[in-house]
Structure formats: C-alpha cells, structure tokens
C-alpha cells in the first residue's frame, strides 16, 4: 500500500489529506467534482506524477466529465486474481465455460482473459482452466445469449443487472431452462450491488443460484456474495474500515499507479472476522 508521501504525488489526494495524514474518504461525487475542475487530466488527479500507465479504463459510472482509471501490468494481474478467487468460491471446474452478458469493456469481462485486454498475463478464466465467451451487453442480443447457452453450455454466467430481464424473457421464449445446465449466475451493477430480494427473485425465475457482485470500478473493487453468510467477502487485496458516518471505506492494496485509498462505498456494515466458509475474510453487508 502507498505511503502518504507517495499519495501526495497524486493531486487528487494531495488536496484531500486529513490531519491524520490520511486522505479524507471520497466517493464518485468527489472524483467528478475534481475532474470538473481540471478536464485536461483524464484520471482526475489520481495517477502518480510522471507515470504513464499501460492500461486505462473509462469508468462507466461517470459520464460528464469522463474519468479514467489506470493500471500497470502487475496490478492488472492482481485484479484478475480477485476475480479468480471470487469465481472459485462459487465453484468452477477446469474445462468448463463461463459466459458473459455484459459490455466487453466491463472489468468483469476484461479480467477474464489475456485475450480481452493487453498486458494481462493470465486472466481469471485462464487461471481456472475455463473457456470464456462474451456476448455484447445490449438487450437486443438476449436471443444470442440464449444461443450461447444452448451451444456452448457454459456452467457459469455473468449478467449485467439491466439485462437480466431481457435474458430471462428470451430464455422463456426459447423454452431453454438453465436449471439443469448452469451452476450459478452472477449479477452485477455498474456501481454498487443488486439488492438481495431482486437477486432472489431472479434466482427463482431462472431456477439457478444467483450470486450478487459488489462493484466499484473507481476503486477497483469487485467482491462476491458468500454462499454461506450472503455477505460480500472482501478479497485480501482490499482493506475495509468503518467510518464515523456509518459508511464503509475501501482501500485497494494493489492499486499503485492510480491509488484507491479510502473509497467510500456508502452505508454498509463491516463485519470483521469471516464466516465458516472463509474465517479470515473481511465481510460487508449492504
């Protein structure tokens, strides 16, 4: 993790250092406000001075101004490791296929394979011996997603929340049942997480376990719901702390080119100490 001296190399953090020499927790609104002041910096002051990162990703959650995050190759690999471990907790078997119904630009897709983004050494699917296929993340492609399910028989699906309904309608129209062929479906939001009730309803409709993903690309945060306690288990790549406001802030240990320190994910409950499935994990309920 970066020291406060290194953080001071980033204008965004330099201007929000607290008396305790730690950055004041921040969220997307603060990032957007900073970006609005200096539109010449695509990274909103978060990339350390003098660095020219190899990979830049445009945040989908912010539009005007457009904001980018950046990584160097080792960081990209560590981020893919987070995704690998999340899938592993839900269960995968080498030789199976995982299919995505999301934009190819989503980190959940990009981190799956070195075939999807440059400078990634081994994506999550490659680490787990999985074949990856991505359908374009627009509702009009729901029928093609059904074709993918029927033809490639993926055991795992990652679906954008806004595509869950068109996908389930297309499955029903085709008479295709997921229950006998898909082990799990994971549902993701661009920012934050789907509420549990909605995920349970989708699970009932599809006849398959549906796991939720907590995501915030600005902080490189990806966390999966636990099969045991249903809280989000934070990978060891993250450190979480409870703020006096009742919010939870996340610091991403691997993010050095574009540090993510004390990112406020909003109102949440931090549970230190894991559950039976992962006794040492930090957990978040939101």
């Amino acid at each position, binding site marked *: 993790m970066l020291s406060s001296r290194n953080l001071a190399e980033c204008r965004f953090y330099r201007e929000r250092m607290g008396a305790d020499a730690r950055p004041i927790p921040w969220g997307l609104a603060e990032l957007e406000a900073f970006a609005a002041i200096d539109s010449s910096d695509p990274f909103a002051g978060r990339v350390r001075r003098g660095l020219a990162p190899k990979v*830049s990703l445009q945040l989908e959650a912010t539009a005007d101004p457009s904001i980018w995050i950046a990584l160097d190759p080792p960081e990209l690999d560590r981020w893919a490791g987070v995704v690998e471990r999340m899938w592993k907790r839900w269960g995968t078997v080498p030789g199976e296929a995982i299919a995505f119904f999301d934009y190819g630009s989503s980190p959940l897709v990009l981190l799956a394979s070195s075939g*999807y983004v440059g400078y990634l050494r081994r994506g999550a699917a490659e680490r787990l011996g999985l*074949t990856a*296929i991505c359908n374009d993340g627009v509702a009009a492609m729901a029928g093609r997603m059904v074709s993918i399910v029927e033809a490639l028989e993926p055991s795992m699906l990652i679906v954008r929340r806004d595509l869950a309904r068109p996908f389930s309608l297309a499955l029903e129209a085709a008479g295709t049942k997921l229950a006998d062929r898909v082990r799990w479906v994971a549902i993701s939001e661009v920012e934050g997480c789907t509420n549990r009730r909605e995920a349970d309803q989708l699970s009932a409709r599809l006849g398959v376990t549906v796991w939720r993903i907590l995501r915030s690309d600005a902080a490189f945060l990806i966390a999966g719901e636990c099969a045991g306690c249903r809280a989000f288990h934070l990978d060891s790549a993250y450190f979480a702390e409870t703020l006096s406001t009742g919010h939870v802030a996340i610091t991403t240990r691997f993010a050095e080119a574009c540090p993510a320190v004390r990112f406020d994910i909003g109102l949440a409950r931090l549970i230190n100490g894991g559950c039976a499935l992962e006794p040492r994990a930090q957990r978040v309920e939101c």
Partner: protein
Amino acid sequence: MLSPARTEAFDDLDRLSSASLDRWWARKLKRVARLGFDELPFYRERFAAAGFHPTQFRTLDDLHAIPVSKKEDLLAAVQNSGSKLPGIKSYTAGPDARMTVSLSSGTSGTTFVMHTRRWRQLQGYSSSRAHWWAGLRPGTPLIMSAPAWHAYASIQPSIAMHFNNPCVVVSGTFLPRFADRIVDAILAFRPRFLTMFLPMVFSTMAAARRDGTSADRLFAGVETLVVTGAPITPGMRSHLQDITRVKRVAEIAGSSENLLAVDCIHAQGLHVVPDTCYAEVLDRTTGRPVPDGQRGSVVHSSVIPAGSLYLRYDGGDAGVIDRSPCPCGLPSPRIKLFGRWEDCFTIGDNTLLPYDVQFALETEVPELRGAALVITREGLANGILRLLLAEPGRSAASLLEEARAGLARRFEVPVEISAVRDLPLRFKGVPPILSEREAASAA
C-alpha cells in the same frame, strides 16, 4: 519514416518475391491441410468425399482439390454431429480449455470461433503486420475498438503489446449512443492511429459536433484512420479524408473466420496478410479462379495451425483479386471486397451490389461522396432503383435530380431518389437494402 512509395517491411516475409511467397504459402497450406485431415472430422469427411488427401498437396494449384466450405456447411455439421460445435477446432498446441470464443453472426445463423492462446500469439503477430502496413507504430495509445465478443478483440491486446502501445478501453459498446465516450477517449489520449468501424466514424463526429468539438480538434494528431466493417468506395475514402482532415485513411477487411487484408499507401486494393490467410477469387458458377479484376466469390484459407481452422472458406463476400506487382513492394496479391452476395440484386440488365450504386452515385455527382443511402426493396420489386439518401445537405434538390438522371443513364433503369432525415444505423452501419417501412423506423 514511411517512404512515400514503398511500404516499410514489417519483417522478412514482406521482403519475399511473389513467387517465393507462393512457395511459402504452399508449405503453410500443406501443413494446415494435413492438420485438418489428421485432427478435424469436419475436414477429414469432406476431403474423403472429394477424393483429396493432403499428401497430394504440392503447389498452390493443389488447393483447388479441397472442397469449398460455407457457413451453411458448418451449421449443417453442427446439426448432423449432435455436438453443438462443428469439428473445426484445432488443438495443435495441445488440449487447451483456456480458450476464448467469439461469435460470427449472420443471416444464416451464428457460429462460434475458438481462439486458443497459440492462435492469439500467431494471429496477433500477423495482425501486427497488418496494422504496421496501415501505419501503426510504437508508442501511440491504442483505443480498443471492439467489444470482447468480436474476434478483433482477441487480437487487439497482442497488437498493443507487440508495439508497446498503451491500451485505452472505452466503456460501453460500439453503438452510436456510446460515441460520446469515444470522443472523450480521443480527446484525452490523442492517438496517432485510430481504428474504427465505418459507421462509428460518423456517429463519433456527430457526438463531437453536439459537444461543440470540431472535426479538426477531434482528429488533431491522428495520422492514420483505419476503417473496417464495410467496404469503402474511393469517394468514401476521400470524403473521410475531407471531413476528418486525417492524411491517411486506410481500409482493413477482415472476418472472424481469418480473412485479413489491408491496403497500403497506394490504396489500390487490400494486400492479403500472408501469415493469416491465402485468398482466392472464384467464379460463382464454376468454382474456378477468375482472371484478375473479374468479380467473384472471395474464398480464403487460414494458414494458422491453431484455433478454429477455415480451409477454402467462402464467407459470402464478393470481390476481385489483383496479382500484379504493387508499387509499394509488398509481395502479396491485393483483393477488394465489394459487399456480400446476399445483397446482390438484378435490375434491368444490371446485376449490382450496393457498392456499385454508391460508386456510381459519387462518380455522377461528386458532391454526394460519402452519402448514406438505402436501396428500397419495393423499388427493386417494381424494376425501379429507388434510393433513400440521408441528409444530402444544401442544394439537395438539384443534386438529387442530377444524381437521378446520371444513374438512370448509367444503368438504363428508372431511378427515384428521395432525401430522408435519417436512416437506421445498426452495428455494421446502415443496411444497404431495406423496405420503406424498415428505413422509416429510424425517423
């Protein structure tokens, strides 16, 4: 620096003579034919039915003994095998579950294309050659211009890493509603080399205009704009140069099934990228090679012994081949695609592709270069070449009348041209032939 006349060689393959390249191709094709026979049921069965055995393969002429395959054959193989995938997946690099799969969609159905790590390495190197020919050089940021479901996405990372280009990933997908995000990416990272699907060039410029950004500012610093996804006419190329002020507009033709060709600085046809594929142009009736310059079916054979293997694959494209020496010095022949045979139509004594109509239009009325147009089905059904032209601009009435008269004279058929506010834009652009109702759906 690029020589004004010759393409700088990417490696020694570019320095071969045409005859040496043919011998190189023969060796590569013999290897993949052998691979197809040994490992892939789809080809073993087809070779057997045609009485072909790879040991017979000596020269490029022997390629003609291999039967031509079409997407329908792949889909039939899927049906017949009971397996969900046709037996064209090659495992030459050893069993590799860690593949990515992309989709090849079309009117006849969707097939799946397997990309093993080995395929990505070989195709990535070959595609780096293609992009080198098109003008990509080390250092410039590479804006990732295809979503992960497309085959191009599987090679872009390799290209970026070959040239040590930073990768810039634009969020969303390549639909007009995301064009403003591409504008942001171009303005923020200032690439010198830009690849875009043709329709996205117009969507991106429209998004920039809405934001008060001129084309000059948007494309400032861009030395090469590569367009792909649709064949461009000479008029479209010069139109793109005019509106973007980019000095070089290059065309790449590619397919998920390993066709790849790129034009050189002379832009007189697209050089076949030799370590991706070998290309032929065949008579649609006889299946025999057509003379240079004569239109036929573009049939290609992958030379990459990994991933999904396509041998003598007819992807449904109409085109010509030119084997004459190119002033740029590259040894591979040039092809030019004109569109898909499924869009071919007959009117009067003419058998035409939409490309021909676009070309005729820009020839008759140069002011209409680059105009988006649709040919209506109702017109064709009644023996009338009826065109809908989007936003022809000022002096539209006189230009349209001039165009109407010129096309009627050229094709000797009745011609009607109407100006419309908008045309339906889909992933690959405006569909060339639509019913009036479909065309009106964009309004």
